[in-house]
């Protein structure tokens, strides 16, 4: 999506020709890990995670931004995808199925979980829905934490390790690739694999947004009663939003398990759901470009804090007053409050056909 030039007045030097924008973004996406590699391998890792979060944010945006259903337990679907991969491709159960079975299965289970969550909550709106989804996320986490007795399924709080990496056509992405004498880092391989997923997701979601389904979601989000009145099957559409949103979470979770090689309930706390939600809120609910920017900004934030905030505090006060983790939470929560008060549409607001009217009402 192109930036909304009226909503976000950019200085003339930044206001690029629209035709130039797309190739530039593509070039940047392809070159980013190489630039990061020059700064150190840990930055490529950050980029890899950023792409996973982009995938999550795109999925959650489908539910929250498009259909207007506030889901606070979204990370549960991520967990379902990750644990599916961990169960089916690790020594834990002795299964080592290939990715083209595990990943779709994880996505399918996540979609089922989405329907399971959506079905009883169809009648709920707004804040009720938020709390029930939050409870759902917590229930999933409690089960992951405790299902090591009497039968060991999830291995409890210790989690599952030595998970199989992503292997595409015999190419193990966890090992550096020797390409005509060049060493291609495993992190780079993962980056391009994730990038492919993200691009596929973007294309899919953009098509979806302008389709009948996407317009139905927008109608439900703006006025459910009116949507019903013009003949939209709101139940079906909401379920679809939950299921499709969950699918993205499931895929992202599977990739996370493969990339990390380890899953434990700790990775799927409420805080993670909130972080993904903040990415959307910050970037601009309903706007794909905004959501992606939000996800990248917030994934990079802790690393930036680690690199800059700590030395700065050392220089100013002679000791670290706030460690990066606390600072991150502080900034996240402030971002949510301030964005809602000052710029509720996000950094890059969604462009609607009636944008001028929305602005007058805001």
């Amino acid at each position, binding site marked *: 999506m192109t930036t909304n030039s009226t909503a976000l007045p950019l200085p003339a030097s930044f206001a690029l020709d629209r035709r130039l924008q797309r190739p530039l973004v593509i070039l940047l996406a392809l070159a980013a890990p190489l630039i990061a590699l020059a700064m150190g391998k840990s930055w490529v890792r950050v980029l890899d995670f950023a792409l996973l979060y982009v995938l999550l944010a795109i999925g959650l945006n489908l539910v*929250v931004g498009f259909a*207007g259903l*506030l889901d*606070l337990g979204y990370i549960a679907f991520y967990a379902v995808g990750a644990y599916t991969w961990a169960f089916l491709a690790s020594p834990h159960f002795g299964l080592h199925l290939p990715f083209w079975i595990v990943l779709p299965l994880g996505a399918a289970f996540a979609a089922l979980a989405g329907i399971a969550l959506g079905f*009883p*909550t169809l*009648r*709920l*709106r*707004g*804040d*009720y829905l*938020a*709390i*029930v989804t*939050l*409870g*759902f996320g*917590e*229930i999933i986490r*409690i089960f992951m*934490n*405790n299902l090591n*007795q*009497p039968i060991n399924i999830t291995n409890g709080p210790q989690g599952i390790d030595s998970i199989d990496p992503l292997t595409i056509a015999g190419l193990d992405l966890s090992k550096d690739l020797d390409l005509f004498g060049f060493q291609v880092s495993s992190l780079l391989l993962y980056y391009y694999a994730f990038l492919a997923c993200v691009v596929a997701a973007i294309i899919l979601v953009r098509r979806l947004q302008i389709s009948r389904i996407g317009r139905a979601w927008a109608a439900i989000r703006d006025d459910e009663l009116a949507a019903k009145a013009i003949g939209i099957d709101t139940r079906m559409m909401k379920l679809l939003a939950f299921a499709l949103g969950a699918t993205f979470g499931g895929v992202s979770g599977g990739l996370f398990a493969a990339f990390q090689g380890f899953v434990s309930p700790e990775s799927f706390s*409420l*805080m993670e759901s*909130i972080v993904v*939600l903040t990415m959307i*809120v910050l970037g601009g*609910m309903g706007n794909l470009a905004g959501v992606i920017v939000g996800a990248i900004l917030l994934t990079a934030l802790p690393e930036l804090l680690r690199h800059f905030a700590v030395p700065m505090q050392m220089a100013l006060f002679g000791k670290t007053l*706030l460690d990066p983790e*606390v600072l991150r*939470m*502080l900034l*996240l*929560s*402030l*971002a*949510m*409050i301030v964005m*809602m*008060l000052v710029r*509720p549409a996000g950094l890059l607001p969604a462009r609607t056909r009636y944008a001028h009217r929305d602005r007058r009402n805001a």
Partner: protein
Amino acid sequence: METFLQQILNGLVSGSIYALVALGYTMVYGILGLINFAHGELVMIGALVALQTVTLLSGAFPELHPVFLLLAGVGVAVPVCMVVGYLIERIGYRRLRNAPRLAPLITAIGVSFLLQTLAMIIWGREFHVFPQLVSTTPMQPMDGVVVSPLQIFTIVVALALMGGLMLLVNKSRLGRAMRATAENHRVAGLMGINANGVIAATFIIGSGLAALAGVLYASNYAIAHYAMGFTPGLKAFTAAVLGGIGNLPGAMVGGLVLGLVESFGAGYIEHLTFGFLNSSYQDIFAFMILGAVLIFRPSGLLGERVADRA
């Protein structure tokens, strides 16, 4: 039989604390139609401020009587929470009163995490031991049933506070203004009621109750922690929904019922599931009740409002 009575007692203790917190949720919801997500954090702030006061006082005057320490702790914690509650409303929610539904909710989540982070900065990540200011020496009124003065104290204080609140809402001038504002802000305003003032008062009263609940909660579990507000907050919300959100007696009934269900659930879940699930699943009950109520009886036990209004 003895376990049965014991479970009832345990359920009443936690239930009366949930009820106190649930009152705050339900009062705000009744007036603004907003779930004050940050309400649980006020429980935490109440407990931690009381703890800080008690620690400072007992450090300075070691010979002080525990009852005085408790009163001092409460005496500081309640006003602090009231101020925090007022600020939340004034800064966070007032400007968003006519905004789309999701906006105040997201702000509320932000406020909740902001308060947690601030508490983490002030009091650290570690668990603090909350001193036992009311005796916890167990007494045995009946064979097999154990009760401590603290538990009796908790139930009595909670019930007294609830009675006081009912009097305030039903008999006083402020209470009548609150009920009128809940009915319709604009019309209440036309009748000469300062709606903003009434809403602020609602937040302040709810926050005070949350602070007291926090002290009781921390005393009963002997622990205070920056993230301790989350669970009681969520459970109290469940209690409020169970009783019928917006309905004060409903919140009390809901709190007590939830406490009892939890205590029985935790006591018997192993038998019921043939040992598959154990008491570490206790926290699931609240969510299951919440889901069940919202599906089958969204108006709650005593409420008339429908969930769709949210």
